[in-house]
């Protein structure tokens, strides 16, 4: 009978956060890492001298000293790439610029630079986190450029001193066709170079440049100390790597509307019929399933009233008597709309709210022929709730009566 029922939903919550968090601007300087090794810096000279005291014939002799034996500390090259989240990054279908965050840490003892590369791992790659799905099910499309270093696009870090780190992010877009539970695995690799960008070669007597200390003749020993292979690099290759993942997660909304004849002027409430003068109750229901992993932010519910219907301004209560004007009102006079939220932690959970049928911006308006419920007003900001937000397991209903002309 009435028509054009519609629901508008704001951008999913985490989607908004991602958009606001998109990196931009100049690259920030490296910062100290949380767990420093405090290694002796490469090219440091370590010298040892012993002394001796003794007596001869009971007479103390002038102390003797050894030669100063010294050696130079070599370059213990080690880079760590560490993802920064404990679970896959939650994304929604059709969202853009979703961020995976890594730290690239100089765990060695000399100033280095690192070449970065991102890898979109093939479908079927093991989930880098505990939990399901066990393997990736799709490949998110990485943006161009995909890699940002401390907020600036680029695939090369700054010169990073030992025990310092930079934050590296990968940006990717999620296809609109993806469904809840889909997983896409991505990797970041960091390859050690000197501050000149030249590759680091392992061995004795290698050229060493770029650190605060100068090796004798700019030559020193280089040892690749990454003794544990990363997921996308080998043992002792001066490359660090780690994997992260996107997991699709959205709200699971259901939307329904029922029309029930609750009273007619002849039969009242006994096998009441849909005849002129009958009272029909509409209930519009929006639910976010308990199994959903994300809230939804509702903006408006709109419904178009047919010209053959007249709004019941007082939300009358059906009774086995008549006439219509004699029926009791559920709400205060003039408040023909009822909104009820259930399954919620909101203060008004299970408590009916009534709104006028006038166009007075109280939250639910009738501007003939349209009914519009503004959820930001009906369900305002409250504690852990955004305006209009319904969390998984929550339901909001809009109830009103009409009279058949």
């Amino acid at each position, binding site marked *: 009978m009435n028509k054009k029922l519609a629901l508008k939903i704001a951008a999913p919550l985490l989607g908004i956060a991602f958009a606001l968090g998109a990196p931009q601007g100049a690259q920030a300087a490296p910062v100290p890492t949380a767990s420093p090794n405090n290694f002796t810096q490469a090219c*440091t000279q370590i010298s040892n001298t012993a002394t*001796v005291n003794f*007596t001869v014939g009971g007479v103390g002799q*002038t102390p003797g000293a050894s030669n100063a034996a010294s050696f130079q*500390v070599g*370059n213990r090259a080690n880079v760590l790439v560490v993802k920064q989240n404990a679970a896959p990054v939650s994304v929604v279908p059709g969202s853009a610029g979703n961020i995976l965050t890594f730290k690239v840490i100089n765990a060695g*003892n000399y100033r280095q630079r690192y070449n970065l590369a991102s890898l979109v791992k093939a479908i079927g790659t093991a989930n880098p986190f505990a939990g399901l799905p066990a393997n990736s099910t799709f490949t998110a499309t990485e943006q161009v450029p995909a890699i940002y270093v401390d907020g600036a696009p680029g695939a090369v870090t700054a010169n990073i001193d030992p025990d310092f780190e930079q934050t590296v992010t990968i940006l990717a877009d999620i296809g609109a066709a993806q469904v809840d539970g889909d997983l896409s695995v991505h990797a970041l690799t960091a390859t050690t170079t000197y501050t000149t960008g030249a590759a680091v070669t392992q061995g004795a007597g290698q050229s060493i440049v770029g650190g605060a200390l100068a090796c004798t003749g700019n030559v020193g*020993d280089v*040892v690749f100390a990454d003794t544990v292979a990363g997921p996308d690099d080998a043992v002792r290759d001066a490359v660090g790597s780690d994997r992260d993942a996107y997991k699709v997660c959205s709200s699971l909304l259901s939307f329904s509307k029922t029309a029930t004849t609750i009273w007619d002027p002849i039969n009242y409430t006994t096998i009441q019929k849909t005849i002129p003068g009958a009272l029909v109750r509409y209930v519009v229901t929006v639910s976010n399933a308990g199994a959903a992993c994300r809230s939804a932010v509702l903006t408006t519910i709109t419904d178009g009233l047919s010209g053959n219907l007249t709004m019941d301004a007082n939300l009358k209560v059906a009774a086995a008597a008549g006439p219509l004007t004699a029926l009791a009102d559920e709400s205060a006079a003039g408040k023909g709309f009822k909104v009820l939220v259930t399954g919620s932690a909101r203060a008004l959970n299970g408590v009916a709210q009534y709104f006028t049928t006038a166009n007075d911006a109280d939250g639910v308006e009738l501007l003939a022929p349209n009914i519009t419920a503004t959820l930001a007003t009906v369900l305002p900001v409250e504690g852990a709730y955004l305006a209009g937000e319904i969390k998984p397991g929550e339901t909001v209903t809009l109830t009103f009566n009409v009279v058949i002309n």
Partner: protein
Amino acid sequence: MMKKALFILAMLIFTATHAVAADKSPLELVSVNEVDITVKNSKGVDEVQRVDAAKAKVVPGDTVIFTTRYSYAGGKPATDVVITNPMPEHMIYTDGTAEGKGTRIEFSADKGASYAPAGKVKIKDAKGKERVAAAADYTHIRWVFKGALEKGAKGEVFFRAKVK
């Protein structure tokens, strides 16, 4: 006149003594820094070789063997011999590795002000509370020879330490 002659004699003795002292000590020390590396021998079997640290790849975490070789060329026996080795900067002593035949080994955690055997060295923390020093706290090692060194005596003392 007699007093003047005695003074001159005393000055000559003093000068002579110090001239000798400025010469090379009869108890000579030679320090050597080495590391043990594993290489494959001609039969393809792993073999540990000790090489000069200056010619090896030494990086943080590696262990260096600091050896002091001594030889005595004096005419009379040397007694009360003590070889002292400050812990080289950037190194951490590896507990239980100091050795020296015929010596008593002692450690200091206060830059050589006091010494005690391992496990009995005391150190005060930032709050002034005394505790037993750990190997990482040692600043000096010394080898106190139990007997005299005769002319021609040779030997070595050593310890191991890790590069910080």
